[in-house]
C-alpha cells in the first residue's frame, strides 16, 4: 500500500478538519475491515488515514426523542447485543448477524457498513467503479452473476451494505458532519447510483463523516431476510427488509426494501402499497414479492436473482408477522 499519514482526532470537528477536498487526500478509518484491503490493492490511495474510533461522540446507542440513536462507530456486534435494538428492530439484528464473520462483526462499524465500497469483482480488480473498458460495460457481457438486476444507469454493482435495507425500511436517517456543520439524509436517499468512476455510491463528500443513524421507534413490525450460500462470511445474493405498521392483523402501511440487487437499496413501493389493508398470508407475501421485482431487468447471467429477491421479500414478510 501507499505510505500514509495517520491521524487520531478526539472530536468530530478535528476529524472533519483532517479530511480533505478529494478522496486521495484522506480517508476515514473505523473498523478498517475493508479500508486496509482497498489500500493494499491500491484502489484507495489516501495520503492520510483519520482514525475516528477514539471520538467519544460517535460511540454508543441510546434513546433520543422518538428515535434510537446509533453512533457511527458502534460495532455490528454491539448492535446485535443491544437490548433496545433487539426489542425494537429484529430486522437490524438479523441483517448484522448475516455478516457471518465474528471478526468483522467485532471490528466493523455501523457507519462503515453504510459507507463500504461495492464488492463488484471488476471494481476490486482495478477496472473502476463502473467497470467499463473503451466505453463498454465489462459487466453486461461478462461475469455478472452477483451484479444488479435493477438498472440504475451505468452502474451495475450492487450496494454491499448489510444494514441499509433494514434501516431504509425503518425510515432511518443518517447524520453527516462536514466543515459547515451537520446535515441529515434519509438512509434510502443516502445511497446514489454513480454515473462516473469518480463519484461515490453514497451521498458523502470527501470531507464529511457519518456520525450517527437515527431510527424512529415507531413500533413497526420488522424483519429482514438474506439469501446466502455460506453459513460463515459470505455476501448475500439478495436480501429484503420490511417494516409494517399494523392495525390488529391488518397492514396499515408498509415499507419494503431490497438489498444486493442494485447499486442502491431498492425501495419497492409497488409491493408496499399492495400490502396496505391486507393481512399477511403466504399468498399475500408471495404477491408482494412478485410486485417487488416488477421493474427488474436482469443481466445476461443473473436472471436467477429475480427469484431470490422475490423469495427474500416473501420470507421477510412472513418473519415479520411471525413475531408477537
Amino acid at each position, binding site marked *: *500500500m*501507499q*505510505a500514509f499519514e495517520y491521524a487520531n482526532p478526539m472530536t468530530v470537528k478535528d476529524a472533519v478538519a483532517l479530511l480533505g477536498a478529494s478522496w486521495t487526500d484522506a480517508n476515514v478509518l473505523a473498523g478498517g475491515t475493508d479500508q486496509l484491503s482497498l489500500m493494499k490493492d*491500491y484502489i484507495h490511495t489516501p495520503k492520510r488515514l483519520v482514525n475516528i474510533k477514539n471520538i467519544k461522540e460517535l460511540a454508543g446507542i441510546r434513546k433520543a426523542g422518538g428515535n434510537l440513536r446509533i453512533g457511527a462507530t458502534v460495532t455490528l456486534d454491539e448492535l446485535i447485543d443491544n437490548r433496545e435494538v433487539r426489542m425494537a428492530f429484529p430486522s437490524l439484528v438479523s441483517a448484522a448477524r448475516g455478516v457471518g464473520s465474528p471478526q468483522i462483526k467485532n471490528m466493523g462499524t455501523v457507519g462503515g457498513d453504510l459507507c463500504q465500497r461495492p*464488492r463488484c*469483482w*471488476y471494481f*476490486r*480488480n482495478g*477496472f473502476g467503479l463502473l467497470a467499463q*473498458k473503451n466505453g463498454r460495460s*465489462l459487466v453486461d*457481457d*461478462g*461475469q455478472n*452473476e*452477483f451484479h444488479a438486476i435493477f438498472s440504475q444507469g451505468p452502474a451495475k454493482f450492487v450496494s454491499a451494505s448489510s444494514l441499509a435495507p433494514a434501516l431504509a425500511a425503518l425510515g432511518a436517517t443518517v447524520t453527516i458532519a462536514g466543515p459547515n456543520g451537520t446535515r441529515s439524509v434519509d438512509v434510502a436517499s443516502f445511497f446514489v447510483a454513480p454515473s462516473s468512476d469518480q463519484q461515490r455510491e453514497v451521498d458523502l463528500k470527501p470531507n464529511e463523516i457519518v456520525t450517527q443513524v437515527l431510527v424512529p421507534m415507531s413500533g413497526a413490525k420488522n424483519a429482514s431476510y438474506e*439469501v*446466502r*450460500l*455460506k*453459513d*460463515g*462470511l*459470505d*455476501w448475500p*445474493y439478495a436480501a429484503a427488509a420490511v417494516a409494517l405498521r399494523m392495525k390488529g392483523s391488518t397492514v396499515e402501511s408498509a415499507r419494503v426494501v431490497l438489498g444486493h440487487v442494485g447499486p442502491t437499496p431498492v425501495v419497492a413501493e409497488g409491493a408496499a402499497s399492495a400490502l396496505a389493508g391486507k393481512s399477511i398470508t403466504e399468498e399475500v407475501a408471495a404477491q408482494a414479492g412478485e410486485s417487488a421485482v416488477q421493474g427488474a431487468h436482469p443481466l*445476461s*447471467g*443473473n*436472471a*436467477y436473482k429475480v*427469484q*431470490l429477491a422475490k*423469495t427474500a421479500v*416473501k420470507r421477510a414478510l412472513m418473519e415479520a408477522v411471525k413475531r408477537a
Partner: protein
Amino acid sequence: MPNYSWPPMEQRRVMGKRLARLDGAAKASGKAKYNSDVRPAGTIHGAILHCPHAHCRVRSIDTSAAKALSGVTSVRVAAEPGKEIMWPNAEIAFVAARTEEIAREALRLIKVDYEVLPHLVREENLAAAGSRAKPAGEVVTGDPDAALRSADVVHEGEYGIPVITHCCLEPHGSTVQWSGNKVEFWPSTQAISNVGGDLAKGIELAAGNVHAHMDYVGGGFGSKFQADLWGIQAAHMSKESGGKPVKLYLDRAAELTIAGIRPSVYGKIRLGAKRDGTLVAWDSLTWMTGGMAGGGLNADLLPYVFRNVPNRRVNHTAVATNTGAQRAWRAPNHPQVSFVTCAALDDLAAKLNMDPLDFFKKNANLTVREAVYVSQLDKAADMIEWKKRYHSRGDKTAGSMKRGLGLAVGTWQGGGHASQCRTNIHPDGSVEVELGSQDIGTGTRTIITQVAAESLGLPMNAIKLNIGDNGLPPSGASGGSTTVGGVASSSRIATLNALEKLFEAVAPSLGAPADQLEAVDGKIQVKGNPAKSLTWKAACAKLGVKTISENGANDQRNPRGLNAAGVGGVHMADVSVDVETGVVTVNKVVAVQDCGLIINPKLAEGQVFGGVIMGICAALMEERVMDEATGRCLNQDMEFYKLAGIGDIGDIQVHMDITPDHDKRGVVGLGEPATIPTIAAIANACTNAIGVRVPTLPLTPRNVLNALAGRRMA
C-alpha cells in the same frame, strides 16, 4: 533376515490403535512453526511483479526506479523484452527489500510496456475454442453405435465441472539463504528429499550444497513438489543481497492463479442399457483445460470404475487456455470423471426407472473389484438408510425444501513410494527413526512412530522420529497417496534390521540364539519365556559404546507384502435443496473406504473426513471464474473463491472397511480416494431431490435455479 511381515491383526499392540496425532497439540496451539512462520535472523522480503494480461509480449522493462528505492537490495527481471507471456499473473520481475512494504512499493516503480495479444481464458464452450482445441483421437472398444441402437434405453446428457484451485492455506513459497556456496532452504513442500536438489538444479549449484528442512506444511494437495521459480529467484536475490535470507511467499491472488489448478471436465455423454439395467454402451466426448498445455485425460478413466463396459467410444479434447498451469490435485482427474460418469449413470438409472443403488450393484461386474463395491454399496446404504428413505427422482412432499439421496464410487492405486529409513538404537536405550519424509497433514509422523514402536515392543514415547530434512535417508514425495505405504514399509524394515543387531548383541547374555529372541513390552526376551529377559535399557547397555544404525528400504518391485495398491470407495449423500433459493444443504455424507491394512483408524478416518469436506466445497461452491473480456481471474481472493466453512459441512460418517481380507494386502494409501466420490454423490442427491439434473457444477443458487427454470447456463 528378520521376518518383516506385519504382525497378525490380533497381536498388534500399537498399530491399529486410535492414537491421536503426535503433532495435534502443537498445531492446534500454534506452537508448530510452518516454514512461512520461519524468519531467520536478518530476513528480508521478496515480492513478485505479476503480468496484468492473459497473453502478451514484453516490449520493454525498466527497473531503474525500483533499484534506486531505498531499502531495495535486489531486482531481477524474469521476463526479458521479447518474452511471450501466456497467462495472467505470470511473473515479470522479482524484488527483495528490507521490508515487504518496500518490496511491494518497488514493484509499482517497475515500468513494463506490453504488446497485448489475443487470448482465450474460458473453455466451457468447445465450439469457441477454435485452434486452441486439440482432439486426442478416438478410443473404441466393441461396437458402441450398434450397442446404442439396440439398447432398450439410451440417455444423452451434458455435464460440466469447472476449474478449481488447490487453495493451500499456507501459500507456496520459501525462505532461502544463499551465502558462499551453501544454501539454506526452508520451503513449503510435499517433497523434502527432492526439493533441495530441484533448487540446486535451478541455481546451478551441486545438489549437496542445498540443505532443505521443513517441520510442517500447511497444505499442498499435489501442488508443492518443486522449488519453483519463486524458490530459485529467492535464492538469487539472497545472493545478490549479501547472503541475507529472503522470504518469498505468494499472496492469495497469485496462489489462486499461478500455483496450480485442477482442470475442468465438460462432456457430452451417451450411454445405453438393457431393460434389466445392464449397461451395454458408453460414448463420450469430453474436453477440459489445464492451462496452455491443454489437459490430457487418460481414456482408460472413462467410463470411470465401470471400465469393462463391452462397447465404448471415448473422445477427449484438450483446450489450451491462457490460464495458470495445472498441477496434480488430490487424485488427479478422478473427482471430475467420477462426477461425469456417476451423474450420467444416475440419469440412465432414472430413465430406466431403477433405484441407482440397484443399478450400480447390477453393473458392479463391469468393475475390477465387484465384491468390494457390492459390499461397500450395501454398507453405505445401511448407514444412510437408503432403502427406507430413497424416493424416485423429485421429492414430491409439499413446501420449498426438497430432500434427496445420491451415491457415487471411486478408485485409486496408492502403492508405497520408494523410501529409505535409518533406525538407530543407542546404548542408553534411546531410539531414533530417521527418514527424509514429510507429514503433509496426513499423520505420517504418528504412523511411522506406531510402526517403530510396534516393531520394537516399545511405547510411542520411546521413539524419537526425525523427518523433514534432505540430509536424512531419502523418501519419495508425498503424492499419489504413496507415502503411508512407503514409509511404513521402510521404517518396519529398518527398525527390524536394527532390532536384529540388538538381538545379536544380547543373545549371549540371555543364553539363546539371536533368532530365538523377541521384543515385547519393553523387554528383550527368549521367545515364549518371559522369565529369560532383559529390560530394553539393560539390553541396550550391552552395546557398550556402539550405536546400532541400520537401514531399510521399501522396494517398489518387491514390497514384501507390506504395502499394496488399488482400492475402491463408495460415498452416499443426503441433501436438502431449497427450490425457492437454489441453496443446497448437505445433511449427511457417508463414506465407505477400503484401504488395506490400517495403521491408525482415527487418522485414516481423518483423511476421509478431509477428503469429503474438499468434495463438499467443490460440489457446492468452488470455481475459478475467468473473464473473457479482461482475461483476468475475477475471484482471486477468498471472498468469491468460496470454500465451505464449519457450518456448511453437515454430518459426515466414515466407515473404514477393516476386514482380514483387506488387512492381509498390507498398507494402501487413502488420502486421494477419500475425496473422489463426494462431488458426484452430492450432485446425484441434489438431482434426486429436485427432479432435474444441474448439469454444471458447482451447485450454487444460480446453477440450481437455472436448471429448475430450464434456463441454459450463461
